[in-house]
């Protein structure tokens, strides 16, 4: 057949196609590879790292004008070297270096060169590490190379690649047997999977069977869905308002314009407010906005003539913009207006997220709050600034998260003031400590009694898993509800109430005060149900419910 003829030799064009094929395939599977990571190690984003590395490699390949394979593979390898990201990226760059070395002096590539390339890639990759661990990308590369070496007689490159891919696949499926961590999590090695995908992509590029079909199909259904949605309001209207009068209440604006449309978003601070709404009367909205201040960046789109896809895209973009403004308008530092006027000897700084919780802390006498918490750690500099900001010379800091303690400590060493850090890991610990605060005591003495007090509190945090994993013998799927007691995962389930019930069962120790702080993703009614659950356990226990407004954790519960 004519086609078979083609696959005996790889020329510059075919080689480039193979690389594009690999890049395409990897892009498609990137998040899948990421999801295979079992260890939350720094190199946790294997898929992303490999993709970024290969991307830079292919970009460099594109720059090369040469028609010779040796020059092209060299360009690819050099790009990978420069663009290597993470452990898996460095390994990939070495594999590609092997490819380049094997093709020195080659004008084109034949079946022998392919076999040589694969085995050279594996050898070079093994060289780069002191103690090669089996069950990783290295094993997969080696098995692929070994299979290739057996095929010396074969001239058809497509057949070789097919065989090699099969061998790589088998090797990949065996990685859980070689690495216990993989077995526990029930996955195959992420790097190995990446290599297999690259090989498959190369084969697809070689035969011209780049599977774009799938992608198109997916897109189609999305469009259909988009069109099926009925549009209630015709015009997407947005504007920025430069506020004249600083006392503008965002909630009031929300209430006033709500009646004119849907998909409303209003965010901002004292200086600038952004409004987005879908309405049939853009004029009314703009007139209204004019009352608040001067307008800029006005856009009005007729959504009925926008294609469904474009609409989706622009909505997504807007969403991001709003998130950003929201983030920025969350003030980094909140000062306590009441306590600044009092003549206190000791200043208190706390880290917190969520308006409800911040207010409670301010009520309890915290002088300054730094915005932050889980996954939003304030920097050392934020602490240094905060310490400077406070007029007192003696200062207590509540980090309220174990990842923030070290930044607070660093700030302590950088400051001339007398700073004492109470190593609180949760908000309830800080609240317990604040209740016994006494301005007349010495810092050292306060630290001792406060730390003792924090030990009396048990904190339950309810949150959702961001990815599949296995911890403490729990198998956790993405989106599962996780119950954390004093920083350790103690229960996992689908339903918040069930998880909380399980935790009460396990952790109940004659508590007499329970406080529930509900945050994003929960409301007062739901919190009442939890209260009932506790009441079932004990009739005497006193239970309080507060709106915490904290993100990520629908509930924070303290038991004392």
């Amino acid at each position, binding site marked *: 057949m004519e086609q078979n003829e083609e696959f005996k030799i790889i020329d510059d064009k075919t080689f480039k196609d193979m690389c594009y094929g690999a890049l395409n395939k990897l892009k498609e599977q990137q998040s899948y590879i990421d999801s295979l990571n079992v260890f939350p190690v720094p*190199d946790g984003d294997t898929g992303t790292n490999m993709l970024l590395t290969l991307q830079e490699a292919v970009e460099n390949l594109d720059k090369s004008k040469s028609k010779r394979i040796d020059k092209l593979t060299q360009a690819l390898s050099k790009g990978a070297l420069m663009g290597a990201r993470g452990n898996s990226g460095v390994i990939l760059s070495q594999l590609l270096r092997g490819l380049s070395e094997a093709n020195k002096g080659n004008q084109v590539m034949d079946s022998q060169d392919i076999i040589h390339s694969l085995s050279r890639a594996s050898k070079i990759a093994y060289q780069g590490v002191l103690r090669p661990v089996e069950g990783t990308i290295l094993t997969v590369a080696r098995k692929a190379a070994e299979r290739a070496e057996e095929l010396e007689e074969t001239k058809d490159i497509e057949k070789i690649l097919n065989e090699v891919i099969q061998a790589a696949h088998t090797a990949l499926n065996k990685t859980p047997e070689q690495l216990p961590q993989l077995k526990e999590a029930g996955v195959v090695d992420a790097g190995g999977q990446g290599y297999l995908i690259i090989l498959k992509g190369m084969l697809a590029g070689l035969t011209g069977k780049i599977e774009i079909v799938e992608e198109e199909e997916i897109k189609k259904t999305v469009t259909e869905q988009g069109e099926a949605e009925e549009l209630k309001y015709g015009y997407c209207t947005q504007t920025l308002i430069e506020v004249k009068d600083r006392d503008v209440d965002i909630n009031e604006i929300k209430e006033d314009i709500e009646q004119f449309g849907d998909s409303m978003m209003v965010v901002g601070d004292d200086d600038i407010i952004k409004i987005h709404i879908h309405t049939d009367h853009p004029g009314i909205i703009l007139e209204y906005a004019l009352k608040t201040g001067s307008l800029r960046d006005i856009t009005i789109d007729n959504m009925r003539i926008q294609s469904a896809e474009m609409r989706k895209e622009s909505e997504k973009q807007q969403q991001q913009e709003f998130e950003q403004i929201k983030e920025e308008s969350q003030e980094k530092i909140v000062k306590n207006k009441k306590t600044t006027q009092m003549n206190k000897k000791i200043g208190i700084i706390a880290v917190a997220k969520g308006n409800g919780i911040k207010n409670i802390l301010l009520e309890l006498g915290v002088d300054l709050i730094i915005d932050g918490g889980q996954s939003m750690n304030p920097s050392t500099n934020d602490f240094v600034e905060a310490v400077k900001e406070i007029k007192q010379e003696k200062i207590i800091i509540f980090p309220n998260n174990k990842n923030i303690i070290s930044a607070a400590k660093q700030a302590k060493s950088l400051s001339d003031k007398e700073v004492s850090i109470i190593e609180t890991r949760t908000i309830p610990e800080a609240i317990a400590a604040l209740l016994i605060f006494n301005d007349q005591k010495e810092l050292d003495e306060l630290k001792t009694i406060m730390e003792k007090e924090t030990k009396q509190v048990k904190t339950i945090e309810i949150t959702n898993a961001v990815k599949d994993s296995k911890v403490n013998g729990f198998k956790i799927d993405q989106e599962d509800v996780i119950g954390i007691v004093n920083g350790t995962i103690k229960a996992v389930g689908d339903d918040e109430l069930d998880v909380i019930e399980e935790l009460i069962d396990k952790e109940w120790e004659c508590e007499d005060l329970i406080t529930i702080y509900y945050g994003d993703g929960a409301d007062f009614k739901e919190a009442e149900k939890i209260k009932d659950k506790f009441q079932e356990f004990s009739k005497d226990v006193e239970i309080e419910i507060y709106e915490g407004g904290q993100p990520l954790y629908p509930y924070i519960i303290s038991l004392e």
Partner: protein
Amino acid sequence: MVKEINTELGKIFIAEEVIENIAGLSAMECYGLVGMSSKNMQDGIADLLGLDNVSKGVSVEIEEDEVKIFLNIVVEYGTNIYEVANNIIERVKYTLKNRVGIEVEDIEINVQGVRIGNGTE
């Protein structure tokens, strides 16, 4: 010096050498690192050391609460040295934090040599 960790039930002391060993071992898991070079700079020669001496090439400084680590390494020719060093820093930090509970303040990497692999058959 030893690293002191206070817990509810008492104190834990971790010897410098333990930290050195763990830092050395976790660094060796990193791709691109092919050897540790002797920490004694006067030797001058970046001698390749085997597994039997994992803490060679690693030194630890403990001052009060702060732990600093110095690694003298040999990398494989053809790897992105910057990225390899970065990977090592992250890996060592992660391992010490999660396996030992030590927060490392600072990790310094000295690339003392580059090895040209003998992969030629």
